[in-house]
């Protein structure tokens, strides 16, 4: 699976049909296109985990997975040009400013831009954007540094690296998962697909 260079990224972005086109929108400047990646920005919604009286999150219990969400997380709409602080070792869920549509012949990964990475910022731990995905991916922002980091919505903190997903002439199957068409930071969604019932099996406590 080779990494796409700038020329190939442009070629895929200029395809006519939306079924085949690589969409990263809006690009505020052509300078966002690097030699082998596209710079992407921080969007305006965040989910901040709270330290609360809830003892833990056991997501193998269906009822608990829905019930504890409001106790554990706070959703916020950030204003542009207004700062927010990511403290050392804190995890915040953010979202990309851009909306992506990945064609079935392309696979992408989200990585921290190197300058931000040197400050200790990690933007994504689950970094894969699968072929056929459409939406604004949720970012898992963490500060691994020793001092608080000031962030603003709109800052280009991440990059999208695109890979060719065609193997022996055939494209990958298209993504239709639980996170399709999201536009804001989203919490994990358990128990929305049949195979999630398996969680209950593994989490079943022995009497």
């Amino acid at each position, binding site marked *: 699976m080779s990494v796409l260079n700038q020329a190939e990224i442009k070629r895929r972005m200029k395809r006519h049909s*939306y079924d085949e086109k690589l969409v990263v929108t809006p690009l505020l400047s*052509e300078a966002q296109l690097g030699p082998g990646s596209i710079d992407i920005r921080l969007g305006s919604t965040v989910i901040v985990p709270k330290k609360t009286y809830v003892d833990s999150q056991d997501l193998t219990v269906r009822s608990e997975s829905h019930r504890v969400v409001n106790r554990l997380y706070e959703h916020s709409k950030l204003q542009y040009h207004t700062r927010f602080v990511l403290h050392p070792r804190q995890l915040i869920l953010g979202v990309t400013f851009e*909306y992506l*549509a990945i064609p079935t012949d392309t696979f992408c990964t989200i990585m921290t831009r190197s300058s931000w990475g040197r400050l200790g910022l990690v933007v994504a731990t689950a970094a894969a954007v699968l072929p056929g995905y459409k939406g604004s991916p949720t970012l898992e922002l963490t500060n691994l540094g020793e001092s608080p980091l000031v962030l603003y919505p709109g800052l280009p903190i991440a990059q999208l690296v695109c890979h060719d997903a065609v193997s022996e002439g055939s494209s990958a199957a298209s993504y239709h998962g639980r996170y399709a068409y999201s536009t804001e930071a989203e919490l994990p969604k358990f128990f929305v697909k049949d195979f999630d019932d398996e969680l209950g099996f593994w989490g079943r406590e022995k009497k």
Partner: protein
Amino acid sequence: MVEGVNEGDVLLSKSFLLLHRLQRELQSLDDYSFPTDATGLALGLLQSACNTLREQIDRIRPNPAALLNRVFFLRKLANQVALSSTTRIHWPVTKYFDTIWSEVFGVGADRPIVFYSLTDDHNYHLHKFSLNLIDELQDVLDEARIKELLAGQTIYCLELASAEDFNLPLYANIGHELGHAVVAASRREFIAHLDQHASPFLTATKAGVESLSLDSEAKGRVTRSAAKIFITIAEELFCDRIASQLVGPAYLLSLYEISWGQDLTAMMLRLPATRTGHAKTSDIHAYPSFNFRIALASRWTQADAFFHELAEGCAQFGDQAICSTLEKLRTLQIDHSTDHCPGFALTLEVKAIQDIISSNMDVLKACVEKAVESFELSSTDRWKIPHHKCIVSDVVALIDRLNHNIVPNIVPDNTLLGQPASFHAILNASAVYRLHHLLGRALEDLDVFQEKVDILERLTSKALEVTFIQRIFSVWKEGVDK
């Protein structure tokens, strides 16, 4: 009250406690989540009023019962400010309308401003927040302090329907409410335009009133009431006209959607009466029928041509379902010839007003329509109300994106970045696509339908947000590049 206790002192103490609690709550409101800056100004005015009231309670010793009621009223206003939050109100849309508001009224300490809040009614309302506050304080504060508080500023509160704060095409109704502010700022000219065109209606009314078996004073009240109905109907239609001009067919579609579940042929008259059975002319209000409003908005937005051209454009990407929806929307030019005035009249005099309006409905509509169009011409010029022409090809391009579940923010132009879509085009594309889902629902599962509408709402919200930022960024970038 308990024997030996001074009731006035008790009420004063309770008012003081409630006022103190209210002040603390106002202090805790976070300006971080205000959709526009005007909410902060409304909050500031309310806080000043509370502070002044608290400082002056001992000195002025207002009527205790009046004071307690005023504190309850201040709490209502505080709730309106507290509901002014980006948690529920979509800030890119309100900021967009704020720009129009500033273009129309200008910017300055003596210019009216508006902040956005929510109402439980399934409707949109505009009211003078600052005036309501001052009116309520008349009998508990001295006039000089009240004038000092207000400092010449008019602050409006525009309440959005809270049940549908996520339905962004419905925000087109903000354009209608802006119309009310224009009328309030030029009431004299408005009435003058109505005078020029009201003669046929007034003549017909006069003839009808003369034949009534009422005394001359009652006849006078019926005539004045009919004139008041004419004015209020004209104002509502003028606001529709302004919204049509500002937002285009998206306003027509929002009006159509908000009319669902209502009596479409009813011209609603609010005709209160005094205890003696006389009509309370000053409190009369009237609303034109939805069918009449939709018919006029359809004409004013040139909806037939718009939907026809849109259908031709959408046919190019081969979606027959959307073309079929657009053909249905062309039939929105509704016949309003069966309009009527429903309701139970409490008194003979009120019944007489209702009968006069019912029997002169056609002439009333014809006169009002002419008056509104005439006033619109002069007010557009005077207030520089923008006229946004809807570019059909842009809306087609955005509908094509929505059809592929892609955010409708860019009109492709063979460049890498494309052209940022206008607010107007996004709202119209989203409004059309929403109606496409709603009208076609019968064909599919409710869960599938709900998921489709959810996706549309998310994509519209994202498009309006990112294009708003893109516009600001482009202006900044051009400045830097120079």
